[in-house]
């Protein structure tokens, strides 16, 4: 079913606001950028902005949602990964997310700090972010299921998807702090962890 014209228009405005905000954040920073400046840049009334996003946090939440959807769409369309094993597959997904976030590193850093507060909507445990998380975890679960079916790893259940989610968060933390050129430390960490983990899963634990 195609979304109605109204929904389409609403989505368009949301995207325009986000685009304006993303242009402003790198220059002024997440905290210093006012909703007034954002609405001006997006050519809408400040009041209209609040119809879409109650707070800047909601805007950030929407941004993350967009990026995660982007990652899922990208993965679906990526033919390079057809023959990749599970370690490469997960590597590609997380690395692609980081690549998308790269232009907004400072903004992400600010959002990340905010998300640490348990009362924030951005917190991974908040009600508001639950939906987004579930969608993403289901996507990861699908990929793990495929690897299970191919006999690459033993059944890991939903726990596996949660573990990958937490791991992604840990990598994001490392990435934000990574001062190496091209953030290659993160590439190495990501690669080694995934190879190690899949190896241990395959061999039923630490039995080497």
């Amino acid at each position, binding site marked *: 079913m195609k979304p109605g014209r109204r929904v389409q228009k609403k989505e368009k405005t949301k995207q325009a606001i986000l685009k304006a905000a993303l242009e402003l954040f790198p220059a002024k920073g997440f905290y210093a950028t006012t909703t007034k400046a954002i609405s001006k840049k997006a050519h809408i009334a400040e009041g209209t902005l609040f119809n879409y996003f109650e707070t800047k946090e909601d805007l950030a939440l929407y941004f993350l949602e967009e990026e995660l959807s982007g990652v899922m769409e990208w993965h679906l369309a990526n033919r390079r990964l057809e023959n990749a094993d599970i370690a490469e597959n997960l590597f590609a997904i997380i690395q692609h997310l980081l*690549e998308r976030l790269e232009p907004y590193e400072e903004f992400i850093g600010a959002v990340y700090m905010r998300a640490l507060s348990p009362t924030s909507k951005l917190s991974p445990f908040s009600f508001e972010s639950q939906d987004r998380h579930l969608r993403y975890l289901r996507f990861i679960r699908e990929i793990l299921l495929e690897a299970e079916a191919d006999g690459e790893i033993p059944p890991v259940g939903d726990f596996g998807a949660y573990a990958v989610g937490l791991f992604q968060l840990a990598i994001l933390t490392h990435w934000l702090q990574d001062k190496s050129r*091209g953030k290659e*430390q993160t590439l190495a960490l990501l690669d*080694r962890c995934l190879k190690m983990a899949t190896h241990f899963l395959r061999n039923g634990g630490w039995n*080497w």
Partner: protein
Amino acid sequence: MELVKTSQKSGALRRGLRIGKLGFGLVGSYLGYQAQNLLLSESGKAQRRARFQKKASQQVSAELGALKGAAMKVGQLLSMQSGVFPEETLRELAALQMHAPGMHPTLARAQFKAAMGKFPEDVFREFDPQPFAAASLGQVHRAITRKGEKVAVKIQYPAIRSAIENDFKVVRSATFAPQLTGHLPTAAIDEVQRGIMEETDYVNEAKNLNYFREQLKNIEWVTVPRVYEEFSSDRTLTMSFVEGRSLGSFLETKPSQQVRDLVGARLMELFEIQAVHLKTLHVDPHPGNFLFQPDGSIGMIDFGCVKRFTLDWSELRRFYDEWGWRENEAAERRFLKIICGPKAPYEKARKILPDFEEWLELIHPRGSGDLFFGRKREPGLEKKIQAARNRCARRIFQNKWINPEYAFLSRADVGLYFLLEQLGAVVNISEIARRVEAGQKTSKAIAS
């Protein structure tokens, strides 16, 4: 799951624990990678077992405390400095390369971008995501430039150099006591670290490539790849693609004895040109550093480890040929200076001469004409030579005086002979040495 044998299993465990105890991080340590590789590589197990069972390798393992990889490399470089190890161990060590974990296509692509700012497909017309060779701390991919030129792109594993640097910090703090007492000179650690860092710096390798390409441009049977600076950095190196087979696969084509001899003579000539005229050596004449073509052309690859020196190789050769140290005391002092270094006390140093002469008498008796490599010797002689050489090396080592440049050059020399041996070539060493010294570059003469 049972590994090779119990002792080895516990060996792997102990290694892991040892590394764990030292507090190596997962990405912060090259040794950490090596430990992890021990766990990860399934296919390597059989090879490892075979290697483990080899006597020479066991010796090395014992001497280096069972740590592999970087530690081995340290051992290799130290052995170059001090002449600690006997010949077969040197051979074993010569074959070692710094190994990095393999990169899957996605990682290789991401790392290329981390190093060059662009993805390979944005730079090249074609880029093969699967590597075709391993390189020091990385891997090599085939690619085709926008202009249609075939190139080889070397990509280094991410952040591996900083991992090695971290290991050296650990080595330094762990060896504080021996450094303090002077048993392990800090300068030696510095030298080893400098060597490894230089060897893994692709900018440095590009410089070496340019140097050798220029110096050897008049020899038509040698190919040194051209560097594509615009697609290179300290972690990626793009070079023109060199055609040819590795030694193993070249030998599988069953080249005629004539071709083997030609290739052998050329390898010898290359070595002599470097040792006598360039005073710069494309180090480790080990099989992995050359590519061979059916017509006997040679491609030189892997210029990470290049060493410059001042030692006069042709003078040394003359001493060998004429037993020049026997002429008078001045000559003897001069010869010992070359071998033991300028600081060695004369009386002590000259104790090596009897062992040395005994060894030389076995490989090239005085007045026996040109020295050939690869001619059949009487049965049992090989063993005697080996034993004499080991005695000689031990004597030099006991004296604790050795000219590092001599140690290095003789080690490279041994590497070359090992290569010729695998090739099964018969080579007139004396003739080539004479020709190169006279400045006649011509292996055409040999070719015809």
